[in-house]
């Protein structure tokens, strides 16, 4: 993991108004705080915290998946199969199979163009398309 690179990418988001932190534990994650959703009109949360794992071999490993707080009503409303539970920053998150760069609509992952700052756009898309 290249902390300096991730800090640069998250700094870009922060300057644009989106808070995000690198949480380094047994396994590092990026925690995007209060990401907007389209849920308000349906009585669902208007924002939600999202975690994304820092891939093994970063930046070569593809940024992939996303996790929502384990009690979030958005689970089951967002695209993707629910998977295992992870603990990030002392909180439990349910990982969900969301693969924007893995043959699921997005461009092939290229670390020269993509990072945690561009992945944010895919999270917005994901959280805007609730069922």
């Amino acid at each position, binding site marked *: 993991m290249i902390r300096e690179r991730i800090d640069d990418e998250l700094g870009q988001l922060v300057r644009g108004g989106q808070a995000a932190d690198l949480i380094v534990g047994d396994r590092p994650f990026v925690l995007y705080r209060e990401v907007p959703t389209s849920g308000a009109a349906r009585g669902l949360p208007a924002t939600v915290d999202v975690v994304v794992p820092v891939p093994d071999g970063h930046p070569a490993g593809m940024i992939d998946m996303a996790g929502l707080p384990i009690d979030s009503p958005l689970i089951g409303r967002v695209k993707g199969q629910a998977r295992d539970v992870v603990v990030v920053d002392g909180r439990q998150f349910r990982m969900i199979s969301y693969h924007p760069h*893995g*043959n699921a609509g997005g461009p092939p992952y290229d670390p020269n163009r993509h990072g945690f700052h561009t992945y944010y756009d895919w999270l917005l898309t994901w959280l805007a398309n609730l069922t």
Partner: protein
Amino acid sequence: MARQPHITSRGDERVAWRAGAPEQPALLELLWRRYPYDEWATFIRCGWRQLPDGLLLTLAALEAQGPGDLDESQGHVVLQEPYVLRAALNAERHNLAVGVVHSHPQGYAPRPSALDDDMDTYLASYFESFAPGRPYVSLIFADGPHGIDASGRVYWNGGWHSVTRVLLERQPVCTWISGRRPAKLPPSPTTKRLTSAFGEVADERLRRASVGVIGLGGTGSAAVEVLARAGVGRLVLADPDVFEPSNNERIHGSGGRHVAAPESKAAIARDHVRFINPACQVAAYVGRLPQPAVLDTLADVDVLLGCTDLQHSRLALADTARRYLIPALDCGATLEGDDGDVTAQVGQITRFLAADACPYCRGMIHPQRLSQELMSPDERARRQDAAERAVARGERPNPYWNAEPQINTVGYHTTIMGAMTAGYAIGWITGRFDPPFTRLQMNLIAPYLDVTDQTVEHEPPKADCHCRQGRGQADQGLRFAQITSPGHWPREIRLDIAT
């Protein structure tokens, strides 16, 4: 009065300085610009990496100079104050090591003069105020009758250290240590034919050379065999795997006893080198690039060979070539078949120099396959399970897992490709020849071998690729690295640490 910098280096210390294109030709052009009689100089910026037993410095940039920055009226180097101050002020804005390189007149020894001692004593102290904690390096180059001679010293951590190896890309250098030319080696009886073909100087260069080989399967073991027999003085070997009986068809140095009691591929290669050439020093790792201890040991190799068919290994090789300026050649071999027929026997050799396009620019990386290679065993199992469940639901499995292709190879093919690659490494080390391509592909069973070769013009780095940044910046260019070691990889193990 000249004050001789007091060199404190231990005998077993490695201090390497490396350069690569495009800075290297620009540097040499500057150094020789007043040849044959007069000297010239330039300030430089270098990436660096602290080694357990020394230091690696890599030329990242020349400090731009203009008219009047050096005194043209003098035959020796006189750096004018504005140039010195500019280099120092720039050092406050970057995180690289600083230094100066100057030439001695053609045919002269690259031995520091009393004036050089004065200059280095002054500059080391001066730059310490602007670049505290960073090394100051001073190098002397001279074009001699047998090629380039060079010497250097580094002020770092409060003491002076001799540069033990000066390494240029594709250009042999004779490194003088502490102002002394290395003693001539007696001719070797085991490499007499090679010497008669390439000359005594080439033989000596090979015996002083060091080559890294990453991957010790079919291609890597063949490369190691060729290099050991050619008399290469030191080999750094790395492979994470343990020998399996099916490897016996391809791996040079393996045999019945390994089938009966498998060892690591690194141990087999080490033992085979010692059998061929007991004088060859071997550093063998159960490990891989870019693991830190492997990288540390590779710091002063002349050439690095990549002999795996893994995407992450190829990417790490190219990244090492770019940031640490270690010239690299990657090779691979694969058989293609259809219904029992062998339809192609493809071999590939790819050059990775500091300024060459990276594997991404060359379209050599499949992002998902690369990610899968880097995943932990648990994550791979989870993904494969998710893919199976997706298929059961009637969905596509590939968002979760892409089937990994089986690379089919046979011993004669891997031996050809490994030996060819080692041959090109010998060409670089001896300065006798150079692969005329950046990437070569050939098919052993196609008419005229269906050879296609790429050059820099065919495969330029892409304008927006990170591979255009961080060149020669070593550890200071980490933010431009394209790969890091996953935390789940077993720690690299050096064999024979007791010896």
